[in-house]
């Protein structure tokens, strides 16, 4: 039985340059579409798992997530609350859950004990970019709490 992520917890999702317009600062809901690396569900990382100190937590998220994918130069991480996410998608009347899914170290990738999955979204049988998928993405876009750059420019 998978362990659900508490509704009070915040989650962070990598958002590449395709879904973040750095000139306007706007994020698109397509950041929450499943990509080829999201095999079992939409991949997210639990915030404040590694540290209560935000900066330390974000640095560890960069390190751990960055060991599995190459960050784009304008990419960011977006944060949203688990309970907000479930509320925002409730109107679609689909079964959606957020479960803990710690990843072990493998093939050069660091372990990610904070990894979690959004199960049931994007909606089964809905094509990427369909009206329903896009509307759901817009609902999620509006509940983004915070964001931070994937790459720190020194």
């Amino acid at each position: 039985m998978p362990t659900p992520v508490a509704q009070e917890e915040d989650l962070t999702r990598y958002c590449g340059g395709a879904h973040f317009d750095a000139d306007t600062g706007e994020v698109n809901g397509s950041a929450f579409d499943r990509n080829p690396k999201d095999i079992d569900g939409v991949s997210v990382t639990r915030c404040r798992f590694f540290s209560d100190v935000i900066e330390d937590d974000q640095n560890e998220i960069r390190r751990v997530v960055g060991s599995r994918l190459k960050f784009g130069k304008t990419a960011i991480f977006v944060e949203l609350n688990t309970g907000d996410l479930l509320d925002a998608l409730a109107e679609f009347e689909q079964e959606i859950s957020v479960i803990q899914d710690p990843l072990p170290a493998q093939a050069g990738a660091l372990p990610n004990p904070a990894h979690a999955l959004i199960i049931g979204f994007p909606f089964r049988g809905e094509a990427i970019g369909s009206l329903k998928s896009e509307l759901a993405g817009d609902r999620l876009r509006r509940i983004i709490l915070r964001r931070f750059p994937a790459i720190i420019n020194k």
Partner: protein
Amino acid sequence: MTKQIGSAFVVDEDQGRGAEKEYPSLDSLLFFEAKWHGDNPTDLLTAIHAGQVAYLAPKRLDVSTLLTERQLQDHGLHLAGGDGAHRWLIPVDLQESEQPGPRREQHWFADLRRRVEELGSIAQDEALEFNEASADQALNFAMKVQGCSRPSAFLIGNGNVRLLWTHPSGQQIGLQFLGDDEIQFILVARRDEKLATTMGADRADAVLRYIAAAGLSRLLAH
């Protein structure tokens, strides 16, 4: 008086109000007039755009504007009846935009084009789909809608480009360009302190009418 393209200058002589006002768009002008005459502005706009009624300036609304008839047509509007059309006075500096050839680019258009090119590069780097027809359609749309502000641009997983205009109030215009003049739209407009969503897919000219009917034309130029 110098005015930007897309603004209008209105004097209603019959009403004796003589107010001179500038409007950011033709839709806002029509909205103003509908309110003036006591109709429901949204219903009237919808009816005008649907071709159910003709815009006749029924109480002799004298209008001088920098909008040409071609630009009116771009909004899906046609002036009809009497000498209504002749009341649209075209100041000299508009003649430039009436010259044959490409439309005058908005000042931010190069930025948007660069962003769309960047999306193409991202697609190449990350082995994502990129629909060139969608990208061209998005750029053409943004160029066509004179007076609009720079939208955000994104590449979604099916390879299509999406343009997005947002407002801190939660209102939005989201347009996914499907190719073949088809646009998937999600409009979020504030009505009676609530946010109402209108969505669907249609041709570009029809989508502009939906935007106007939702009262979101101003968001394009926000």
